[in-house]
């Protein structure tokens, strides 16, 4: 494919990322690697393929990190795609458990209990 297309793009990065994010170069605030994403709408044929894929894969909750891994796109690109989907109310983004200086005791006890069962 690249042999007859001697464009300037580097082999490992054929689509410039600003195209995928629809021109938004800024990294939207508010997403964490472990923010959970759940689809609230079905994919629509008019959507960007990456966004449609996110809706399909997030039928059950998935973290932003997992979405990034399965799409093979960097975190910053995925958050740009997700912020559009959140704005359109097609996905819900569930923030991680807030951790101030130290986590809540109840959270720690739940994690300890869960780990002991491993």
């Amino acid at each position, binding site marked *: *494919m*690249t042999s007859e297309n001697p464009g*300037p793009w*580097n*082999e490992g*990065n*054929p*689509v*410039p990322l*600003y195209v995928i994010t629809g021109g938004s*170069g800024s990294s939207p605030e508010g997403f*964490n*690697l*472990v*923010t*959970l994403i759940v689809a609230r709408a079905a*994919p629509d*044929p008019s959507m960007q*393929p*990456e966004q*449609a*894929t996110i*809706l*399909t*894969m997030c039928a*059950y*909750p*998935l*973290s932003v*990190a*997992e979405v*990034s*891994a*399965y*799409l*093979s796109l*960097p*975190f*910053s690109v995925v958050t740009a795609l997700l912020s559009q989907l959140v704005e359109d109310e097609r996905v819900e983004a*569930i923030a*991680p*458990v*807030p*951790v101030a*200086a*130290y*986590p*809540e*005791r109840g*959270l*720690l*006890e*739940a*994690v*300890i*209990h*869960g*780990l*002991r069962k*491993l």
Partner: protein
Amino acid sequence: MDYASSDAPAGSGAPVPGPRGTDMLLPHSARGVKVVIVGGFGVGKTTMVGAVSEIPPLTTEETMTQAGVGIDHNPGAEGKNTTTVAMDFGRISINQELVLYLFGTPGQERFWFLWNGIFEGALGAVVLVDTRRIEVCFEVITRLEDRRVPFVVAVNTFPEAPQYPVEDLRAALALGESVPLVACDARDRASCRDALLSLMDYLHTLVAAQETA
């Protein structure tokens, strides 16, 4: 070269990326939390993540970019101002609602730009140490202390690595007395779970101390 995600709309019959059925979370999974495993290259971060994760370890990339990068058509200059670092991570469903994610991140100073995103909201960190290359950990530990990230130190017990008495290591790392220092075999699930539990127990102690203060 894989253009599938760009060319094929979802549902067209082409493979759609996403988790295998067994790697899906429960539908009512409601909250994520994370722990960071930090250490030098080859210390066993990915091995540790894989040993305790309920899914095969995945990789996410973080890119540090500057304005204009990515629209630079000048051949030979691509990538000059970008740094991409792959982070391996895994997942443990703690209960029906809570999901613990484990991220492995390199400890060298040139990767510290990642730390803002990665440590934000983290419960704490496991510093994984290879006794053959202990120097990576000095700066990591200082940096974690500066950021007030609670951590434990886990010494990965490579068979060929020199064995030091725990107290010698504690002195060499200038660790506070209260910071747990544990031996860990990064290939072993129970051993990695115990390292994570030592972090949780330590956090529990810190919280209890704060409550009575």
